[in-house]
């Protein structure tokens, strides 16, 4: 097991290296960038924890008063499991079944099982971070609102240590099944994407409707609680152990938490050499000579960027989620307009804005989630030399990244806008707000993403999940997107609502986004191109 430590640290270092900008002692500019990034990171963490605290406070009060304390911790346990599995599934699959350095490590005098264990340990670190983010504030809130016995506190502490284990076991099982299925399929990306999307949407749906379920549960009393106990009994025992200090319940939870993790670790340990070295052999694609269609150099780069985007489900899901939501929710809005009233819990007259305006705002919100270009420089990795050695200007290479981002996210946004326009029949200003602003924001995010990624690039990743999901530029681009939405919103609420209609404000914001895009394009031509050329290759 002496080899466990170095392999474990390599995995951890690789993960941290992608999340944080490269730090050189002599470089004062990088030091400032790193400090700024850490502050932004802390800000995001505080915001997330703050939001959770508000949600858990309501739950702790209502469930504590109704005598369903166990349910509170069952919900927390569910949220932890869900976050760990959804948040870590891509990485688990990439690290255990598709890591680039599997062959290198297996060539060293290290037992295959040790390679696997060190990988699992590094993935568990991520799961522990997720667990602390969710269970930490939840536990503090419960103790502050209700009370907890000494034994309950010990069980709470032990449960936090145990919770990532079943999540890891579940992630390993799903990743194993996915790997076995997808490695045999030639065009598995679409199915993979569909699967992940389904998984993600189901989790999102459950989490967003959690409050409703809890309210129903509290109001319908013991009958549903009993059903809950029977179906997800490990989570019931988790809650019972903490709130009632019940040792038997804790033992049952302990067994339930350890079993999937131990079973999956044992199975994968015995199979790891086979997993890492077997070429499952997708059938060879026979080459048949066809006419080769020519296109210009710029278009060739745009097509190349789009092919890269569509070849990685994790890229689509993380970078283009806004586009997917734009279409799905526009269809939903067109077919079930009553949902919007339900969402605000009010009658038509009492909605804050008219429905087309809400649709435009929603599309803007999803446009701010378009993060394709924020990973577009890092994702080049070792292939950066190709673009750098070809007779195309650096500005054109960067513009191709913005263009592919705009196409990948802008087309779904446009489809969403068309559906909303046809179904909701907005007036002229509403139409402008619906079409111009969300699409302008997609383009602005495209320019901003490239600009940010040029300042926070990571080209030495081990698997593409790292730059696409964990890269520093992704987090910063997300914050930039939030700022682009919140700033005009605040301006309107506090200053401009007296002098203009909200629809006109949205349209005006779109014009501002166009202005920002022009400024960013100018900066990309000069400073951006210089930064790209300094990346080497």
């Amino acid at each position, binding site marked *: 097991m002496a080899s466990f430590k170095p392999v474990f640290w390599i995995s951890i270092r690789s993960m941290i290296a992608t999340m944080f900008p490269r730090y050189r002692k*002599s470089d004062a500019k990088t030091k400032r960038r790193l400090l700024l990034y850490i502050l932004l990171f802390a800000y995001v963490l505080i915001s997330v924890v703050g939001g959770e605290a508000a949600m858990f406070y309501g739950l702790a009060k209502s469930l504590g008063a109704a005598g369903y304390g166990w349910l509170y911790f069952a919900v927390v346990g569910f949220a932890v499991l869900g976050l760990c599995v959804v948040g870590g599934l891509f990485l688990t699959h990439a690290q255990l079944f598709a890591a680039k350095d599997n062959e290198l490590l297996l060539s060293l005098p290290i037992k295959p099982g040790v390679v696997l264990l060190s990988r699992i340990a590094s993935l568990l670190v991520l799961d522990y971070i997720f667990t602390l983010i969710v269970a930490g504030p939840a536990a503090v809130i419960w103790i502050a609102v209700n009370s907890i016995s000494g034994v309950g506190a010990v069980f709470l502490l032990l449960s936090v240590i145990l919770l990532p284990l079943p999540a890891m076991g579940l992630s390993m099982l799903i990743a194993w099944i996915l790997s076995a299925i997808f490695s045999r399929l030639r065009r598995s990306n679409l199915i993979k994407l569909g699967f992940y999307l389904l998984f993600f949407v189901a989790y999102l749906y459950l989490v967003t409707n959690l409050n409703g379920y809890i309210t129903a549960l509290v109001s319908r009393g013991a009958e549903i609680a009993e059903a809950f106990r029977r179906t997800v009994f490990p989570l019931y025992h988790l809650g019972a152990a903490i709130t009632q200090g019940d040792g038997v319940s804790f033992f049952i939870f302990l067994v339930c938490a350890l079993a999937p993790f131990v079973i999956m670790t044992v199975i994968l340990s015995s199979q790891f050499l086979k997993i890492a070295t077997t070429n499952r052999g*997708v059938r*060879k*694609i*026979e*080459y*048949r*000579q066809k*006419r*080769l*269609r*020519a*296109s*210009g*150099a710029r*278009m*060739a*780069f745009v*097509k*190349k960027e789009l*092919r*890269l985007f569509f*070849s*990685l489900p994790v890229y689509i899901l993380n970078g283009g989620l806004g586009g997917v939501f734009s279409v799905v929710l526009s269809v939903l809005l067109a077919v079930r307009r009553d949902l919007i009233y339900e969402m605000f819990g009010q009658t038509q007259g009492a909605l804050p804005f008219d429905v087309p305006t809400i649709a435009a705002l929603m599309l803007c919100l999803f446009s701010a989630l378009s993060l394709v270009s924020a990973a577009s420089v890092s994702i080049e*990795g*070792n*292939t950066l*030399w*190709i673009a*750098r*050695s*070809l*007779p*195309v*200007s650096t500005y054109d290479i960067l513009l191709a990244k913005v263009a592919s981002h705009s196409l990948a996210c802008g087309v779904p946004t446009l489809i969403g806008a068309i559906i909303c326009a046809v179904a909701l029949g907005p007036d002229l200003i509403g139409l402008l707000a619906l079409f111009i602003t969300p699409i302008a924001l997609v383009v602005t995010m495209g320019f901003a993403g490239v600009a940010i990624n040029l300042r926070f690039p990571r080209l030495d990743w081990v698997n593409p999940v790292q730059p696409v999901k964990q890269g520093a530029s992704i987090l910063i681009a997300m914050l930039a997107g939030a700022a682009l939405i919140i700033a005009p919103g605040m301006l309107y609420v506090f200053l401009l609502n007296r002098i203009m209609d909200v629809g006109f404000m949205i349209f005006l914001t779109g014009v501002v986004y166009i202005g920002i895009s022009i400024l960013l394009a100018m900066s990309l031509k000069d400073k951006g191109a210089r930064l790209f*050329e*300094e990346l*080497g*290759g």
Partner: protein
Amino acid sequence: MLRIEHLTKSFGTKKAVDDLSLEIKPGEICGFIGHNGAGKTTTIKSVCGILQFEEGEIYVNGHSVKADPIACKRDLAYIPDNPDLYEFLSGIKYLNFIADVFGIGEKEREERIHRYADMFELTGDLAQPISAYSHGMKQKLALISALIHDPKLIILDEPFVGLDPTASFKLKKLMRELCDKGAAIFFSTHVLEVAEKLCDKVAVIKNGRLIAFGTMEEIKGDTSLESAFFGLEEQNG
């Protein structure tokens, strides 16, 4: 075809290439030899416009790499020591992408792709994703992509690594044929026997400085290139 004048490239305080000058004329094959970390790849990447350099000037077919990098890149082809290609593309799509960038006509690209793919026995694998290629197949694909636009200057960094004996033999033959038609080739290698048989000129680099440059006869004299190389290394200790 290639003129390097007083090239200096530093990484931090370390000079990776120091005041290097050489010239390769059309029709010449020039081998670039030196120990690991001597500055070969840095020189090559500077010539290809991949690395920026502080001092000196590089001209490709009369165009300055600093002032007109795109004109230089149009005339040259580069193959790195490790052919990391776009693994999400198939071989044929990668070649078509390169042909698009160089603006090669449809018929011309089809003819050239198939000529070189047949030569390197890669035609049957062109529809496969590059991710399924072996190192040697990637090297062959990189070679085909470099030749697709009929370059005037070909820069190769360790081109024979990973190639099978047949492909290696064909590449050597092709290099000579291309130079006979007026192209120039500048390539780095550690295989001195290959350099000795193939090259018209040799450049020897040590610790970033060019310690010898001339025709093969001038450099090796009556001995072998290997003996000459070790002699030069010793002299410049």
